[in-house]
Every structure is written in structure tokens, then in C-alpha cells.
């Protein structure tokens, strides 16, 4: 069935700029509530910084808990943007068009949020200044670049800078459009941000060539970021469950799994909230679900391999850890929930087209995946530290404190708050992409069937 409708550009402008040119009724109450929750989170973080990490459940030997789990989770979510935007752009996948901006945005905001966690986890965040950029030249002491704790911020900063610039460059034509539709201070703002965009062939060519070039440059960064995050653990040879040679690709594919699922969640919300039924269609969810089946199954393969390699050496502590992760309370319960939500429930459901094209089901299954993927990170990080080992004589069972849970919830409110704030000023679906799709797509008759045909430029 052909789901695409022929839409004129005035209609496309009116629909896709409905968040910027008008204020949807739900926007202000939602942003206000989120704003209050964000402030509560900031207050709790401030209290924690003032009182110290004693207000958390972190204690010897579990010093990496909910914060680092959530850090890895948000870095994972950030992999949505480049996976969707860069790969689909490079392969000229037509269905990418309504998805790219939201995915790039999710990358930027989730990375910003991820960066908060190691900072607050350090206990005295101001001392980070002595530890990473700017280099402490006055004392002649420099960061130890052999530590993955230095590699991490370098990689994430690179990814964040690149993603933000990528987002801005792709936003230029839409900023020109907003400039043309606004008056007063908004017009002045968009005029400056659009840099004088006019839409001549040279500017459009730079959008196309530049977009492909940036995609090609961002892809290797995207792979490196989660690889380096995985080395925070994999290089720690003393912790069973962490010291694994396949952690880098395992983390990357896991990040893509959770990231693309987060894009599905966001797409469903965008369709419902802004009523973009003409632009975000069931066929897009169908395509994303097909992609997710492949990614999720690849990720499951890595999960199995990671377990196999761990057990193959028959190292007693490693076997003990795996036994604890999978068979001892409460880890076994978490492990079962993780496996069911990350793979066993959603993927078999996605095998059916009725599910793939049902937006409500796609929304809930994509949330399930991210519940599972958060648990996966928790099960990687905490049990390795929590397992009782010889010659350690102080022991506390790790129970995340209300402070940690509040900051965890804050991170979701914060990302949503930023997204909604962005949506008030900038379009979440690229208008020029939606219009280009109309220019480059037409219906052709093959026999008695009317089928959509997509023009692709040979270059």
C-alpha cells in the first residue's frame, strides 16, 4: 500500500513548523513540569556535591554503580544519531528523511547528559579541571593519556562537537525557512543563525556533498566512542566480567540497539504530539524495526560470545561471577528481565508486519529494549565489583540510594526537557528533506499497479 501523499510546500511548512510558529497547548504545561523536575534533580546533585558521595549507596568494593551505568546508557543512546543519520545518508535510504534530525538531536542531548555522570561521580567535580582539559600547565603535571579515563572525555568531546556541528549544518536550510516565516526578534535570531542562506545551487550542492562527507567522517568517531567507553572496563584486568577483548564491538552494537530503539520511541512521540501522520508513517517504523531485528540479533550474538569466551577459559573466579550474574538472587531476576526485555519479547514481535506498522506497539517495545539495555550495563558493571573475593575485608552490599535514583530520573527529564525546548525553536523533522522527497519521488504505473519510484542522482 502506498502511504506517501503528494504534499505541497506550503502545507509542509505549516505542518512541520507547527511547533515553532504556534505553541502547542500541551507544550508549556509539559515543559513546566519537566523544568520543575529538572530543578529538583539539580538540587539533589548540589546536595550530593555538598555532602559528598556518602549520600549514595556507593561503598567498598562497589564504587561504580548507578551513575556509571547511566553514563554508559546515555552514551549508548547517543549512537542513534550517527547510525541513523550517517549510514542512511551514505546509503541514500529514502526512509531516513523524517528520522535524521531527531536522531542527531538525541545524540547531542544524550551525550551532554552522559558527560554529567562521570563529573558528579568524581565527588569533587571542580577537580576535573586538573584532570582533563584545560591542561594544568602551571604545575607541570599533565593528564595520563595512557588511562582510558582520559581517552573517554577526549572521544566524547570529539563526538559531541562533531555531532553538534553536523546538526547545525543540516539545519541551515530550515533556519532560512524559519527566517522567511517569522517577524520581530525571532526573525532577527533566525536571520543570524541562517547565515544568509538563499538556496542557490552552490549552497544545495554543499549541503549534499558536505552531508555525505561529514557522515563519512562521523562514522569512525561513532565506532571509536563506545569502543573507548568499553575500555574503561575492559582494560581493568583485575575485575572479572570486565576484562574482555570483545567489549569494544559488543558495546558498539549494544549502543546501536538501544540508540535506534530510542529513535523509535522519539518518532512515535513526535507523530502523536505534533500530529505528523503525513511525514512519520508506519512504513518508517516498519523499516526501523527491520533494522532493529538485524542489529538486535547481532548484539545477541555478541552477548553469547562474551559469555562463551568468559567460560571457555574455565577460570574459577570468572565462572563464579557468571554463576552469580545468572543464578543468584537478585542478579538472576535482573538477568531474566534484561534478556526478556532486550531481546526475547521485542524481537519475535517485530517479525510480524502488523507489529512493525503498529506505532503504539513499536513505542512500547522500543521502551522495553531500553529497559533491558540499561539492565545489561548494570549487570556488566556492578556484579564484577560486588562479588566477594579473597583478602578483601570490608564489604557493603550495593543498594542505590534515593539520591542516585533521583539523579537517574533527572537524566530522563533533562533530555526530554532539552528536546522540547529545542522543538519550540527548531524543526524536529528536516523540512528540506521532506520537500526533497516530494521532488525526487513520483508514482509510476507498472501494469495496473501504481508504485512509488524514487529518483537517485548518479554522481
Amino acid at each position, binding site marked *: 500500500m502506498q502511504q506517501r501523499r503528494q504534499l*505541497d*510546500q*506550503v502545507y509542509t*511548512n505549516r505542518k512541520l513548523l507547527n511547533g515553532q510558529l504556534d505553541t502547542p497547548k500541551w507544550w508549556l504545561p509539559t515543559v513546566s513540569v519537566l523544568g520543575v523536575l529538572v530543578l529538583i534533580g539539580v538540587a539533589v546533585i548540589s546536595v550530593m556535591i555538598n555532602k559528598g558521595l556518602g549520600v549514595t549507596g556507593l561503598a567498598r568494593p562497589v564504587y561504580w554503580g548507578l551513575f556509571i551505568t547511566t553514563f554508559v546508557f546515555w552514551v549508548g543512546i547517543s549512537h542513534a544519531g550517527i547510525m541513523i543519520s550517517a549510514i542512511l545518508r551514505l546509503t541514500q535510504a529514502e526512509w531516513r528523511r523524517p528520522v535524521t534530525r531527531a536522531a542527531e538531536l538525541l545524540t547531542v542531548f544524550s551525550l551532554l547528559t552522559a558527560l554529567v555522570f562521570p563529573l558528579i561521580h568524581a565527588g569533587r567535580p571542580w577537580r576535573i579541571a586538573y584532570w582533563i582539559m584545560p*591542561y594544568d600547565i602551571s604545575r*607541570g*603535571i*599533565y593528564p*595520563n*593519556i*595512557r*588511562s582510558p579515563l*582520559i*581517552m573517554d572525555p*577526549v*572521544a566524547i*568531546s*570529539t563526538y559531541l*562537537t*562533531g555531532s553538534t*556541528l*553536523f546538526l*547545525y*549544518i543540516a539545519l*541551515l*536550510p530550515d533556519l*532560512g*525557512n524559519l527566517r*522567511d*516565516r517569522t517577524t520581530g526578534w525571532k526573525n532577527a535570531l533566525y536571520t543570524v543563525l541562517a*547565515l*544568509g*542562506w*538563499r*538556496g*542557490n*545551487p*552552490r*549552497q*544545495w*550542492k*554543499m*549541503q549534499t*556533498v*558536505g552531508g555525505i*562527507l*561529514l557522515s563519512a*567522517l*562521523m562514522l569512525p*568517531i561513532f565506532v*571509536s566512542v563506545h569502543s*573507548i567507553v568499553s575500555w574503561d572496563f575492559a582494560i581493568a584486568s583485575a575485575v572479572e566480567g570486565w576484562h574482555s577483548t570483545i567489549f569494544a564491538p559488543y558495546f558498539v552494537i549494544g549502543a546501536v540497539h538501544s540508540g535506534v530503539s530510542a529513535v523509535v520511541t522519539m518518532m512515535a512521540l513526535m507523530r502523536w504530539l505534533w500530529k505528523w501522520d503525513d511525514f512519520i508513517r508506519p512504513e518508517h517504523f516498519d523499516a526501523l524495526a527491520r533494522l532493529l531485528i538485524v542489529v538486535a540479533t547481532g548484539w545477541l550474538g555478541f552477548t553469547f560470545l562474551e559469555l562463551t569466551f568468559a567460560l571457555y577459559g574455565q577460570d574459577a573466579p570468572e565462572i563464579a561471577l557468571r554463576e552469580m550474574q545468572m543464578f543468584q538472587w537478585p542478579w538472576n531476576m535482573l538477568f531474566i528481565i534484561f534478556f526478556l526485555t532486550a531481546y526475547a519479547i521485542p524481537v519475535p514481535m517485530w517479525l510480524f508486519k502488523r507489529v512493525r506498522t503498529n506505532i503504539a506497539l513499536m513505542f512500547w517495545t522500543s521502551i522495553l529494549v531500553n529497559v533491558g539495555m540499561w539492565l545489561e550495563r548494570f549487570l556488566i558493571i556492578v556484579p564484577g565489583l560486588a562479588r566477594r573475593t579473597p583478602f578483601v575485608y570490608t564489604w557493603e552490599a550495593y543498594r542505590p540510594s534515593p539520591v542516585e535514583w533521583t539523579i537517574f530520573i533527572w537524566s530522563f527529564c533533562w533530555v526530554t526537557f532539552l528536546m522540547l525546548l529545542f522543538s519550540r525553536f527548531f524543526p524536529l523533522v528536516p523540512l*528540506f528533506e521532506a*520537500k*526533497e522527497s*516530494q*521532488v*525526487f519521488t513520483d508514482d509510476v504505473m507498472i501494469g495496473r499497479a501504481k508504485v512509488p519510484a524514487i*529518483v537517485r*542522482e548518479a554522481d
Partner: protein
Amino acid sequence: MTTSILGLFQQPEPAADAMDGLKEAGFDLGTFDVLTGTPYPEGAFGEHVPQHRLFRFPAFGAIIGFTLSVFLTSVTQLAYPMVTGGKPILSIFAMLIIMYEMTMLAGVIATVIGIVFESRLPNMKPGIYDTRITEGWIGVVITFDDDSKVADAERVLNGAGAVEIKHA
């Protein structure tokens, strides 16, 4: 004094006819351009295909980033030569990671600068324009050093079916 006129079209075909007409009337390729609210296939209006040097920018940026990263990673380690974990002071594998990230970062920044530069942006006085262009209309803009050819250009635009002609 430089003046310009803008012919507005509602369909791509008459705009392409206007571009052809301007070429036939002897206007230099650099004096007229087409403005659209969406990318069209290259050559859809018979326009001059713009040449660019964008591909040089990432290479240039990457060379700068790599050079800086070699300096940063080696000089900082040598300045405070503390052995940690029995590893060499200049630990090549660890250095490579930082070098890789800095090379890519500089490559991306240079590419973005390249896109902006090659798009001839920022341009805060972009000249004659119409907001209907971002509603699907197509603009053909012609720039003149003197007013003697304005009438010729208007005739071509009207002949091709321009809905409106604006002067600046």
C-alpha cells in the same frame, strides 16, 4: 551601481526556460542564478554546475589535528615522565587513541568550515530575495553592473512565464 532583479516562478519548467533564455540573450553565467526552497537534481534548471574544493578541507584539517595531537601527547608525557603500570613513557597505543580523536575532530571542524566557506556564507547582505521561495516558488535572480540590460532580462523572464518580477 549594481542592481538585480528577481523573477518568480511557480513551476520548475518555466524557470528552466528563463535560465535558457538568459543564456541565449548573452548574459554571463556568473550573473544569474536560481533560488529554490528544496534541492533539485543537478542541472534541473540548466544552471551552471558550481565547482568546489570542499574535499581539500577535511584533509587539511586532519593534517593539522594529527600534528597537534603528536605534539600534545608526546610533549606532555615527556614533560612529566612518570612511569605508571610499567608502561613506556611514550606509550604508542594510548597515544594513537588521542591522536585518532584529535585528527578526526580537526577533520570535522575543517569540513564544517569548508561547507560554510564554499556555500559563500555567512552573507548578511544576501541581496534580492522573496520568502515565497521557501514555499515552493522558484526564483531566478540576475545581477547587473549597469542598468542597460535590465529590460532584456525582464523580457526573457516575462517570456518564460514569470509570475512576478522584483527589483532591488
